[in-house]
């Protein structure tokens, strides 16, 4: 359905003298099939959101392509057509609404842009129905300004907006980070119902348990590069890359207290921190690495499971 091919994004900052080049996304490849959820996992600054923005055509890639059914999305010039098929939900619900309008404006605009053929009263019924699905009462929220609603309510309004549009691809950028635990499950269920009708979902998160709960596939990013990817079952049951192992090891468990002997983040040789061009990006935190760990390529370790580490 949607496919990222050698996707790269480089940010330039600073003026002539102090030029600063940051490679936020570095040749990332993945594919999301119809009715599949792909979890994009990584720490802050690993390029997750940048990938999401590029898939929504909000940022232009510096290299590589994003293909929607084998067509480069940046060659689709009709935005109405593109955005009726690909939609997104952003990380920060507070800044996703224009503060000087009431929140129902986002639904009005969707009708004006994409669903002009539907009458206003029918549209309002649909909005109400969809709000119910995400656990909101239309009367309580629609006629309010953003400062009168909570982050969770706003986020669910945005999810309702995406649900209304029956899209083919949805980019969900950390949509549960503002929600409390009980509504989180409702939202995840809403995503699953979207998946059931055939949508491809990019689920950007740093919460591995949520990723496992709803996803079919996973891509683990570290500093913009894919370190491990594949089917979620395989990656979770047999994590190979030291970074993935560390991530999985740091999930707090209900039945386990903190222990001393977990793989520590500090446990690395400081002399290796001197990073050189061509070395593995994870070298400064890796417990397996030595000075000769060159930048690895993704390799197939078992069916549907890729790892980028020279030690494996």
């Amino acid at each position, binding site marked *: 359905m949607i496919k990222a091919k050698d996707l790269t994004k480089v940010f330039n900052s600073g003026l002539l003298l102090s030029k600063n080049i940051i490679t936020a996304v570095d040749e990332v490849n993945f594919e999301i099939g119809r009715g599949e959820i792909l979890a994009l996992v990584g720490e802050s600054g690993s390029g997750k959101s940048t990938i999401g923005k590029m898939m929504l055509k909000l940022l232009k890639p510096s290299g590589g392509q994003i293909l929607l059914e084998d067509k480069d999305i940046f060659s689709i010039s009709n935005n109405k057509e593109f955005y009726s098929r690909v939609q997104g939900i952003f990380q920060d619900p507070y800044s996703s609404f224009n503060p000087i309008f009431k929140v129902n404006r986002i639904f009005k*605009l969707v009708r004006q842009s994409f669903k002009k053929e539907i009458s206003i009263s029918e549209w309002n019924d649909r909005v109400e129905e969809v709000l119910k699905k995400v656990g909101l009462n239309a009367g309580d929220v629609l006629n309010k300004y953003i400062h009168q609603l909570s982050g969770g309510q706003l986020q669910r309004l945005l999810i309702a907006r995406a649900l209304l549009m029956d899209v083919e691809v949805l980019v969900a950028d950390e949509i549960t980070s503002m929600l409390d635990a009980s509504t989180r499950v409702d939202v995840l269920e809403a995503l699953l119902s979207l998946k059931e009708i055939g949508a491809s979902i990019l689920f950007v998160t740093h919460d591995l348990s949520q990723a496992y709960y709803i996803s079919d596939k996973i891509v683990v990013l570290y500093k913009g590069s894919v370190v491990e990817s594949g089917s979620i079952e395989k990656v979770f049951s047999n994590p190979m890359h030291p970074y993935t192992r560390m991530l999985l090891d740091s999930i707090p468990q209900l039945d386990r207290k903190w222990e001393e002997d977990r793989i520590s983040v500090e446990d690395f040789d400081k002399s290796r921190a001197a990073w050189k061009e061509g070395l593995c990006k994870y070298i400064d935190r890796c417990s397996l690495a030595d000075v000769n760990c060159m930048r690895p390529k993704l390799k197939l370790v078992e069916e549907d499971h890729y790892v980028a580490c020279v030690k494996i």
Partner: protein
Amino acid sequence: MKEFIYFAFKNTKFKIGLAILLFFLILAIIGPYVSHYKDPLEYVSMSNLPPSRENWLGTTTFGQDVFTQFVYGLRSTFFIGLFGGGLATIIGLLIGFIAGYKGGLLDDLLMMLTNILIVIPTLALLIIIAAYLPYRGIGIQSVIIGLTAWPWTARAVRAQTLSLRSREFVNLAKITALRPLKIVLEEIAPNMMSYVVMVFILQFAGAILAAVGLDFIGLGPTKGISLGLMLQYSTLWNAIQLGIWWWFIPPGLAITMIVSSLYFLNIGLDEIFNPRLREE
């Protein structure tokens, strides 16, 4: 829009500010038609007459009619506020918006210019410019004020633009397939509008005060009359010591009230435009 008007007339600060401002504005417009004399500098009567039926606000030491001077002075005050403040607002908005929206090298250059102008003491600059011009009218005075008052507006507008540009609702509008022009006009501009109005109001007040300051130190218009010049002349001819209160109280009070009414309007509008401040 309808909503703004509704909230505007529920807001006491806005109503007070508007009422005072309108009072002086109407006085400035119709005053010259109802006053008994046409030339504010003409010697029309005996000197230092207290307010009477003939001279509503008395006369100056030179026998000029204070009411006539006052209403013509109000006119120049509003003129300077409108044009000086307007010019500063337009320059500040343009530079701030371009710098914030375009970014990069242009942003750096424009902000360098702005910062240089900010560190130059404005009054000193105004004195030098004013002293170099042998003939100064109200128009030139407003241009001088407008050209020196914009830097802080530019900085504030730039910051506002930067912050609005990176807000997610702009992205949400983009993925709702709104056209770029529609996004600028319907999503970004309404958020800037309140800001623009308030910047203009503060620049209006600032320009009036700057003009009064210039007039008072003797660098006001060489021709014509203004509230600042009235204050200067009255102090120069010892009106305060001689108790000729009708000469200096009207202009002083008018300036204070106009500037305060503008600040009231500013605070009121802030509450009207920003739904977060509307709650009682």
